[in-house]
Structure formats: structure tokens, C-alpha cells
């Protein structure tokens, strides 16, 4: 392997690292990024930005065959398209502003739908802090948009290009290891040799198998099937029926972990996550009265676009080796939430490692892997929380208590919104699962939940006084 001693010396002199890795990028180094979704673009953007701060000049090629300008699945990255409250703030601090052509709707609240009623949870400062975005250029049957639309992935890609990254519109089908360097092979053109290859191809890409075959210990993350579809309702209808809220459902449907309806421009996106999503589950969900109530005249319109993409539910094993690092969904992602946020975190951790610590297996193990492990450990707590959520989904008295406690809190001002903040962070992905779980152990939370468990079930009619809309059955105490 090449030892870039001059570069190391420079960086040691600059005091950037006490023990800099001997395998490092130097001026003129070539970096290949496989995949131009959020993880690939974030990685390129941060790598170029950080490299600039220390006067390091590197060349980045992003391999992405899609332009993200075509409507429908061909130009889409198959995802619900939510940029979390947490990530919106971090991006703003990074100088990445999401303009109106990228944001299809600013979300300022969540509506939680259960069989016992519906409750609205507002953002803490009552401002639009969650962005609903397209991952491509809109659904298949979208037609010409009344305003300019730019997909989130394309927007990030353009930012990376404005910093100096080059896009190669080629599909990578193989990564090999020859003469101490990773080589990238495409279906057309000669193979290219790089000093570093970052794989940000997602979980649905065919390029992961050849990387697993390189035998450095990488194992593709375990994945589950999801369902995403779009309905055309028109902007006015969406404003009237769905508003600027994301709609979440806690329904007693086996194998369904999360369900959300996300308003975007003239369309709404439906996202179903769980361990066994199939046609029958989708039909059961769409037939639920709580779901139908979200649509005009309680009729669910026909879908204009749909897909069954996979999401990872367990972390990859060893997503790095000398000169190769796997980021975003190809590595580790948060369980059921904030996939774009995970792409941001892993991409930034990888870029920071590459620029300030080196590109060896040891550097990635010491400086990149802890970020992945942290996400993975938090997912274990998340799994426990979703198990609890299952119990709530299946037990009507706990649903009543949860509904009553949240609805009552929403009528109050100040910091005493225990259940609301737990649900908000759980649904938005704004806080780690560990932090949310610890909040539920606080005596005040437990005491209030206990009180609402009694009050909500001894006299369920009391629900009508809270800031939610109880179903007729519950309002009448049935």
C-alpha cells in the first residue's frame, strides 16, 4: 500500500492528529463514491469541505446512473421522504438550506390516529421543522408540476458537484481489489482505480454482493420489505383533509410496525413498515376506518405509483476495510426511522475519518465504526420500544390511556408534555431511542400514565374533554 509520508508529515505538523494513520489521502488522490443518494452526496460534500479546511485537494467521482429528474420509480430512491426535525436543524447549521422547490410540504405537527381517537401533536415551537421531500421527481402519473420541483437526492448531488465532485452516469456492477487498490467496474467503459472507494449504494443495490465477496468480513445488512405508494389528491384537498401534519397510525394490525401518510404538494405518500408487509396487509390497512377517514368521503383513491423497497433492520457486519468504507443503508441505519439522518451521520463520520485520521482498516475501526455501533446499539433499544408499542396497539385500555394523556397535555403550555415529547421523538426520530426510553422511567411520566390508565378507562367519556377527537364509541363510553 502506498505510504503518503509527505501528507502525514504536513498533517502531524499542523497538529491535526496525534497519531495519524500511515495510509491516507494526499493531494491528487482519487475517491470513488458508488451511489449518488443522500449518503454518497453527503459523504462527497463533507469530504470536500473538510479537505479544503486543511488544504487537501482530492478528486471525487460519484457513480450514479439516475438523474433523479424523471417521474416515477426510474428516477426515485424509493423512500418515504421525510427529513427529520433534528436533521433539518443540523443541515441549517451546516449551511445546507432546503429551498421551497425541494420541500414539497413543511410539516408542523403529527396526527396520531388510533381506534380510540385522533390526537394532534404540534412541534415544540409550532414551526415547520420537518421537510416532506421527493426522493425522485415525483410520482409516475404526476404530470407537469405547477411549481418547480427538485428531488432531495438531486439537490444534494448538485451541492456535491458545486463543491467539485464529478458525476459519472454509470452503473457499477463490480468492485475488485488489484495491486493494493480498489477497482470499480461498470457495464460500460474501462475499470477505474481509486485510492478510496465509499459504497453508498443503499440496501437494494446489486453491487453489495461483489463487495461481500471481497472477503474482508463485510456482511450485507438484514432487510425487511416495506410498502410505499402515492395518491393524487390535489393541493386544496390535502390542505382541507390532511393539512400540514404527518399522519401516523397505531392500529392493531399484525406485522405492522409503523404506518404514515405524508402530504407532499399535490400528492400524499403512504409508508408501511413492518416485518411482513404484503398485499394482504396493505389491503387490511387501507380498509381501516381510521385510515379511510383521512381521505375525502372516506374513499381511498387509486394509487398512482407504488413500490415494495427493502429497508435494513440490522446493521452490516464490518462495513470497512483498507481503502473501502460502506455508508448509509449499505452499512447501518436507524430502525424504522430517519434513514436520511442515518445517511448524514455515517457519511459525516466516514468523511471525518478519511480526512483527519486516514483510510486504513484501523482508522475506520477506531473512528468510523463507533458511530455505526452507537446507531446499532440504539436500535436494540428501539426494538424494545416497538415491542412496547405492539402491546399498546393490541390493548385497548393502554391506547385509551395514551390517547388521554397526550390529548390533555396538548391543551397545556410549558414543559409538562411527557407523553407528547416521547411520541414526538419516537415518531420523528428526533432523539435516540435510549434517551426516549429513559424519559419514560421518570416518576412524573409513570405517575401520569398510571393516572390516565385509570381515568381513561373508568370513565372513557372524559376523553371528549381532551384536545383530541375521540371516536364515537369512546366518547360515549362504549
Amino acid at each position: 500500500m502506498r505510504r503518503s509520508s509527505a501528507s502525514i508529515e504536513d498533517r502531524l505538523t499542523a497538529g491535526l492528529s496525534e497519531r495519524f494513520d500511515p495510509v491516507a489521502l494526499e493531494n491528487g488522490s482519487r475517491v470513488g463514491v458508488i451511489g449518488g443518494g443522500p449518503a454518497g452526496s453527503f459523504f462527497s460534500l463533507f469530504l470536500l469541505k473538510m479537505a479544503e479546511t486543511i488544504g487537501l485537494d482530492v478528486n471525487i467521482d460519484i457513480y450514479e446512473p439516475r438523474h433523479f429528474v424523471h417521474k416515477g420509480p426510474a428516477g426515485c430512491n424509493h423512500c418515504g421522504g421525510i427529513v427529520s426535525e433534528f436533521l433539518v436543524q443540523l443541515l441549517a447549521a451546516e449551511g445546507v438550506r432546503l429551498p421551497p422547490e425541494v420541500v414539497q410540504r413543511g410539516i408542523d405537527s403529527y396526527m396520531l390516529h388510533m381506534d380510540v381517537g385522533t390526537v394532534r401533536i404540534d412541534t415544540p415551537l409550532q414551526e415547520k421543522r420537518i421537510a416532506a421531500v421527493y426522493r425522485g421527481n415525483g410520482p409516475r402519473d404526476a404530470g407537469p408540476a405547477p411549481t418547480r420541483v427538485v428531488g432531495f437526492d438531486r439537490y444534494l448531488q448538485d451541492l456535491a458537484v458545486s463543491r467539485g465532485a464529478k458525476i459519472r452516469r454509470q452503473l457499477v456492477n463490480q468492485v475488485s481489489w488489484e495491486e493494493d487498490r480498489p477497482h470499480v467496474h461498470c457495464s460500460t467503459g474501462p475499470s477505474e482505480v481509486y485510492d478510496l472507494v465509499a459504497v453508498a449504494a443503499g440496501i437494494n443495490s446489486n453491487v453489495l454482493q461483489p463487495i461481500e465477496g471481497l472477503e474482508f468480513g463485510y456482511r450485507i445488512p438484514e432487510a425487511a420489505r416495506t410498502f410505499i405508494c402515492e395518491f393524487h389528491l390535489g393541493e386544496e384537498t390535502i390542505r382541507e383533509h390532511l393539512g400540514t401534519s404527518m399522519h401516523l397510525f397505531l392500529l392493531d394490525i399484525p406485522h405492522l410496525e409503523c404506518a404514515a401518510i405524508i402530504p407532499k404538494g399535490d400528492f400524499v405518500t403512504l409508508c408501511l413498515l413492518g416485518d411482513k408487509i404484503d398485499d394482504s396487509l396493505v389491503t387490511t390497512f387501507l380498509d381501516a376506518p381510521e385510515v379511510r377517514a383521512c381521505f375525502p368521503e372516506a374513499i381511498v383513491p387509486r394509487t398512482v405509483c407504488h413500490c415494495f423497497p427493502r429497508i435494513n433492520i440490522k446493521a452490516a457486519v464490518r462495513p470497512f476495510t483498507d481503502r473501502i468504507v460502506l455508508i448509509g443503508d449499505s452499512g447501518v441505519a436507524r430502525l424504522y426511522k430517519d434513514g436520511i439522518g442515518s445517511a448524514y451521520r455515517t457519511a459525516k463520520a466516514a468523511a471525518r475519518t478519511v480526512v483527519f485520521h486516514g483510510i486504513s482498516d484501523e482508522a475506520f475501526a477506531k473512528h468510523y465504526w463507533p458511530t455505526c455501533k452507537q446507531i446499532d446499539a440504539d436500535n436494540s433499544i428501539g426494538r424494545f420500544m416497538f415491542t412496547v408499542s405492539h402491546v399498546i396497539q393490541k390493548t385497548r385500555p393502554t391506547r385509551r390511556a395514551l390517547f388521554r394523556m397526550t390529548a390533555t397535555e396538548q391543551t397545556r403550555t410549558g414543559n409538562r408534555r411527557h407523553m407528547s415529547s416521547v411520541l414526538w421523538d419516537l415518531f420523528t426520530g428526533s432523539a435516540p431511542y435510549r434517551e426516549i426510553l429513559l424519559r419514560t422511567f421518570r416518576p412524573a411520566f409513570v405517575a401520569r400514565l398510571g393516572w390516565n390508565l385509570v381515568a381513561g378507562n373508568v370513565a372513557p367519556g372524559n376523553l371528549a374533554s381532551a384536545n383530541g377527537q375521540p371516536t364515537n364509541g369512546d366518547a360515549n363510553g362504549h
Partner: protein
Amino acid sequence: MGIRSLGKRYRSGESIVRQGAAGNCMYVIQEGQAEVYREENGREIRMAVLKEGDFFGEMSIFDREVRAATVKALGDVRILTIDKKTFMRRIQKDPSLAFDIVRTMSQRIRQLNCDLAEMRARETET
């Protein structure tokens, strides 16, 4: 400035932050412009006009002091709030997050030095 925007909308002339008030967040302009005023001896002195992408209120995040100036909407404006808690916690794990803010603060100090030098030069001439 409608459904496709993030942040909170402020009408023209509306105060976003007030000089002397306690602050636990910073702000980023999403759309529109804002003007910065400082009250001195009962007079409002206009300090700067901020545009899309500019941030303000960052000093209160770092130094725990009250707001140093008043910021008002110049025309309709959309502002995104960044919580101190969210930001400071993240900085502990990722110090590079503060890079853009430090760079902008550095540019502002540089500009202040120039303004101060010009003022001193004018005083000397008179």
C-alpha cells in the same frame, strides 16, 4: 411563502428577537430578509440586513448572555430555529458542525475591525 417552506413566518416589521431578552436558540433565514437593530441611548441604530441562509442569535448559544440586538422581519420572512440543546449536544460529538458558524463569526469580527478602523480614521481626520 407557503406550504413548501420550513420555519415560522414573521410579518414585515415583526420582532424575531429583542435586544436584552434571554436566548436559548439561534435562527437561520429560510426565505426573505431581516434587519438587525441595536438600541443605543434610546435610538435604534440599524446594524445590518440579513438574507436567505444567514443566521443570527448564535452569540447567545455560546456565551449565555442576553440578546445583543433586535432583529425584525424586513418584508415577510421565514425563520428556522435551531435549539441550543440540539446544537450543543451534537457539537460534542461532531465539532466540525460548528465550522460554518465559526467562519461566519470570524468574518463578522473582521468586518467589525474594518468598521472600527474606518471610524477611528474619521475621528482622527476631524
